[in-house]
């Protein structure tokens, strides 16, 4: 439960970093999870490492791909005057391209290396403390989330670049008049977004079966978490991702044990969270008054 919720937090925060730049949710975001997972798995097969050792690579590769996608594709599109609808279509197209690349890569690797590449799960590292062996992932994923949250917080509030980043996100035109390179900051936002999501992907290989398709599996949860958190707020994303992850696991556990519902129906839980939050609090949890303090950025009305 903790692992799943923690990793969803990372993915949701990643989505928020892309949303605050272009103001349109990235439908290709789930594929960064798949890329991160494949980076970890390929390195395990080739070099025999475990996903913890390859976390920096799981951060870098999807991060760079996300940055290239932004600079090479999405930025020119926005500059050419693409509206929300066109951007959504472009995201979907990018998703399809990345997804097919993953499938081609996986199938080729099956033939080249002879290992299973289309669906896999990796074993967690077991740690022994006081004679009790336990799996590292619940602790490690929590540490990763807390670590990233602290780093991001310090980075955004204490460094000059972080302040510039917040300025560029709040008001791009005003920030650029002050000499802030908004484009650079947006590109770095995409890098962070891809990286955070890739890290989640690298770790999730030890918690759930993975394959090229996991982008679609997680994008539904990521969106539910983001909408619940309010899309444009990083702190809301942390909250939303955790709530969706925790309630999916606890909810399906409860439904299975008490009502005999098969576990395949777990996708209904993030979906109902999404529907309820759209109908009750479309601006997300952080728009509620007691949580106003956590709010960063402005929720968008239609037509904006």
């Amino acid at each position, binding site marked *: 439960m903790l692992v799943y919720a923690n990793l969803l937090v990372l993915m949701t925060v990643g989505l928020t970093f892309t949303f605050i730049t272009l103001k349109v949710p990235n439908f290709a975001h789930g594929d960064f999870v798949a890329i991160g997972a494949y980076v970890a798995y390929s390195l395990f097969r080739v070099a025999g490492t475990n996903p913890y050792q390859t976390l920096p690579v799981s951060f870098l590769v999807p991060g760079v791909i996300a940055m290239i996608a932004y600079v090479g594709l999405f930025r020119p599109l926005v500059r050419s005057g693409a509206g929300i609808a066109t951007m959504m*279509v472009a995201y979907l*197209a990018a998703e*399809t391209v990345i997804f097919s690349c993953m499938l081609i890569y996986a199938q080729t690797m099956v033939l080249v290396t002879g290992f299973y590449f289309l669906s896999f799960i990796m074993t967690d590292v077991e740690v022994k403390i006081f004679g009790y062996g336990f799996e590292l992932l619940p602790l490690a994923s929590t540490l990763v989330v807390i670590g990233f949250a602290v780093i991001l917080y310090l980075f955004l509030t204490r460094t000059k670049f972080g302040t510039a980043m917040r300025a560029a996100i709040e008001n791009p035109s005003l920030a650029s008049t002050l000499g802030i390179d908004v484009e650079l900051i947006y590109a770095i936002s995409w890098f962070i977004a891809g990286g955070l999501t890739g890290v989640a992907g690298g770790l999730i290989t030890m918690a759930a079966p993975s394959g090229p398709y996991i982008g679609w599996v997680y994008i539904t949860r990521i969106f539910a978490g983001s909408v619940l958190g309010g899309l444009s707020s990083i702190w809301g994303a942390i909250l939303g991702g955790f709530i969706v992850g925790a309630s999916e696991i606890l909810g399906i556990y409860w439904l299975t044990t008490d009502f005999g519902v098969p576990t395949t129906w777990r996708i209904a839980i*993030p979906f109902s969270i999404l529907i309820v939050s759209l109908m009750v609090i*479309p601006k997300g949890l952080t728009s509620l008054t007691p949580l106003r303090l956590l709010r960063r950025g402005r929720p968008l009305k239609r037509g904006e």
Partner: protein
Amino acid sequence: MVLGIVDPVRFIIDLLAFFAIYSILSVSLNLEYGYCGIPNLGKVLFFAAGAFTVGGLCSRVGAYIFGINVAGLDFTRDNFAIVSQVTSSLSENPVTAMGLFVFMLALGTGIGGFLGFVASYPAIKLREDYLGITLLIAGELWRYVGKYYDPIVGGTLGVSVPSPFSWIGQTSTRDIAVIGVLLAFAGLTWFSVEKLVRAPFGRTLRAVRDHEEASEAFGKNVVRVRMITLIVGSALAALAGTLYAFYVGGVIADDFAEQKTFIAILMVTLGGRSNNIGSMLGSFIYVTTNALIRQYKYYVQVPFDLNYLAVMIFGIVLLIMLLRRPVGILPETPSKTVDFRRILEKMNIRDQKESGS
């Protein structure tokens, strides 16, 4: 064998049939995405709605009509037995067969329209991206329902669909009849959508797409217009789905993955947004390319399935189109209005009549 194609006649029949089905789908998406500006990322949901209706109900209704004893038969496990009995009964009763066919089409279309209302209701008042997220997840959920709840369309095994045209004995005649029906539906869809977008309602759609606030200021109910568009578009997509299920002769839930939405969007964007001929052209290009790849992929030796490469190239083509030529191959044409001289003539005739009387 012609040009490496094993059965050229079947190839052309398949090509025309899928062109007809996909052109209904793309024209329906064009109504939503091209004319009203709603990128329906859950298009597959409505396509699947039609197909699931046929897959789940056609053989059951058929069995009920002909009084076939299905007690003790499991719909999923003994699907083939039920379907073959229904098909043999249908082949003896042409009128009932056609009645069942039309009834299933109407039912599927109705269910599609209703789902269009239900799936878009939570987010219709919000921005397009919220609507897109909701529809996308709804489509994914729908596929899960089909896949893991066996009584609908047999879960992971899928179901067969009885052929309503089995009463036409000769295969070639039957193929021509089926193609005729499919093309007729495609033409009818094209004609009615074309009429709809040339009507005042179509102008409202474009106004909502181009400037929401302005159209709201002129008293147009934007939410209502979007809702109607989505209901009509979804009903048409479901029509395409029912025809698809009947033509393919079977329904399996995993066939209705998000890729179908991508294909629909590709067809519309490639052919030309807000141009129904363009959408049909787009679907023709897609269907032809796909059919050719299917035929020729066994001649190429690669370590992966060539379909993935094709999808990837389609994605890249779509992105290049968005960057370089967002209007598509056939751009939007201005609405045809009545020729000014004809208006003058009419006015003259009326004047003469008035002065004459």
